[in-house]
């Protein structure tokens, strides 16, 4: 898989490398290119990871990009795709944010159920279908959460939603490709057992 899956456009691996080099040189326009290519996918990932806290996700997108520019010197193309590296930064920020929230003893964002995405549905029928599907999906998700560890669920999300390769998932979560492979296999097995059992 290339970064196309993440970015929603055909940007090859080399383009990520080129963008990283442009950021390192502080080329004019590199910042905008970064926002255009990865802004939406990162926002989606952060928002999903934070249980639908869109505004907080926006803040973390901004922080992710700023952190990426600050640490661009440490990016090594031979070790991770640029998207994988970027999502790794975002993931660390999510974990930091969670720790912060735990310290504040506030209600975690993941405890809230978001239906904001449903507002985009175009007709009452679509809306009804969306609600049904969404409710069903959220019910499935709740069951999966009960059976899978957080790490297993995370690997599944990165694989099925963001279409990352095993290697890329490794660079996001800081594990080797083989470890991710094993994790993914275990997670899939558990998910199948749970979902087929429900059927």
């Amino acid at each position, binding site marked *: 898989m290339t970064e196309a899956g993440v970015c929603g456009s055909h940007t090859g691996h080399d383009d990520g490398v080129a963008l990283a080099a442009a950021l390192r040189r502080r080329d004019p326009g590199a910042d*905008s290119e970064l926002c255009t290519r990865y802004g939406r996918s990162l926002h989606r990932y952060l928002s*999903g990871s934070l249980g639908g806290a*869109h505004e907080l996700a926006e803040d973390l997108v901004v922080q992710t990009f*700023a952190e990426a*520019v600050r640490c661009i010197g440490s990016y090594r193309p031979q070790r991770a795709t640029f998207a994988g590296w970027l999502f790794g930064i975002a993931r660390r920020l999510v974990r930091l944010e969670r720790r912060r929230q735990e310290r504040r003893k506030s209600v975690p964002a993941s405890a809230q159920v978001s239906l904001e995405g449903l507002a985009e549905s175009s007709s009452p029928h679509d809306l009804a279908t969306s609600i049904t599907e969404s409710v069903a999906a959220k019910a499935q998700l709740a069951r999966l959460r009960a059976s899978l560890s957080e790490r297993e669920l995370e690997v599944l999300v990165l694989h099925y939603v963001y279409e990352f390769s095993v290697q890329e998932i490794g660079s996001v979560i800081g594990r080797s490709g083989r470890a991710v492979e094993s994790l993914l296999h275990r997670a899939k097995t558990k998910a*199948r057992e749970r979902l087929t059992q429900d*059927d």
Partner: protein
Amino acid sequence: MTERWEEQLEQALHAAHPETTPSAGWEPRARAAMTQVRPARPRRLIAVTALTLMGLVGLSFVPIPLGRVSGSLDRALAAMEQLTTRHVVSWHITPEGTEERESWYSADGFFREETRLDGILTEVRVADGPRVKQWAYLDGDHTRATVWESFSPMRWRDPTFISSDLGAEYEKYRRACEYMLTNMVTEERRQYRAWSGAVDVVALEATVKEPGTLWGVFSLAPRGDRVRLVAEVEAASNRLLSLKEYCFRDGWQLVSEEYDEWDVQIPEELHEFSAPEGAELLPGGDWWESRVTQIVAQDETPDWRVVIQGVDVNENGDVFLSLLLERKPDRAPHSGGPPLVEAYDSAGVTYEQERSRWGAEVSGKGFGYWVTRLYRDPQATARASAITFTIFPYPGEEGAGESVTLTVPLPERQEGDDLPAR
């Protein structure tokens, strides 16, 4: 083909991460944040660099003791006779600020010295043989510069002045130890260092008895201060590597440092001399050029040869006496101190020696050139044809009683007051 459970899984996961649209303002905010941030150096690189540096620095700072030695500075002085060039970089603290000096010496008589005060070039001296060109700023604002050319009898006498220059320092060091310092403890040890090989470290610690100038610094040290000098000499070549001075003020403080390089290539452009634009040209500076080859009169004491090289009389009748004082070859090298002179003329008028202005140049190789002024009694009107000098070449503790008495004709009076500065 995708199985049903996998479809359900994908739906569930997509529900957890639905498509989102960030608000319109996020992108300018992100760009602004990226603009403000400064790229950091990779931590791993910093860590590796720091560890490497620490290791290397650590290695160089962990000398292996090789035992006691003696006579390192004498050997360093002797070794200089064989050297062709010397490059010195030094700094010391003055009441005006930190003065840095960079000097180049060559055995063929070339010399250049650049002086900087708090980083600003304030003085340049260039010598090719005995002739010295020099410019310097006379004010703190660096607006008024003067330039002049002079003749140095030391370089006329000793073109290989690399050694004589350091010899002068060595002599100053020796004399300072003798007269300015007390309770002296000297330690001389050989060390082995990873980068520089075997090095002799001469460390001297003493209390200031008489505030004075030792390598230009100890004038800052009040009486009773503890001071420390550390010289390093390369054991294999006997070349001086560095000199450091410390004063004890709430702990040892480094107040002066000098690093020496030997037999280095001197860049051609350093031979060029140019003064700042608008520098005022000062006359004079050739006093010794016309006197250094003259012998008006001479005599000897047990330790010294005394040569009168010039007698000049100003418009008031004051006498300027130009002297060469030379230690006899069979005596230990010593350039003496400022000579003490008593004088009376053939009209019976006595003269009083000016003590504040000696106009002297000193060498560490056993000789020194001196100009001293003798004031004639202003009330005396009688003219004289001859003058008798009693000269004590070294009125200090050693050989204090040695003197010569010489009578020479008095020349015609010359216009002006301060003849050497004219």
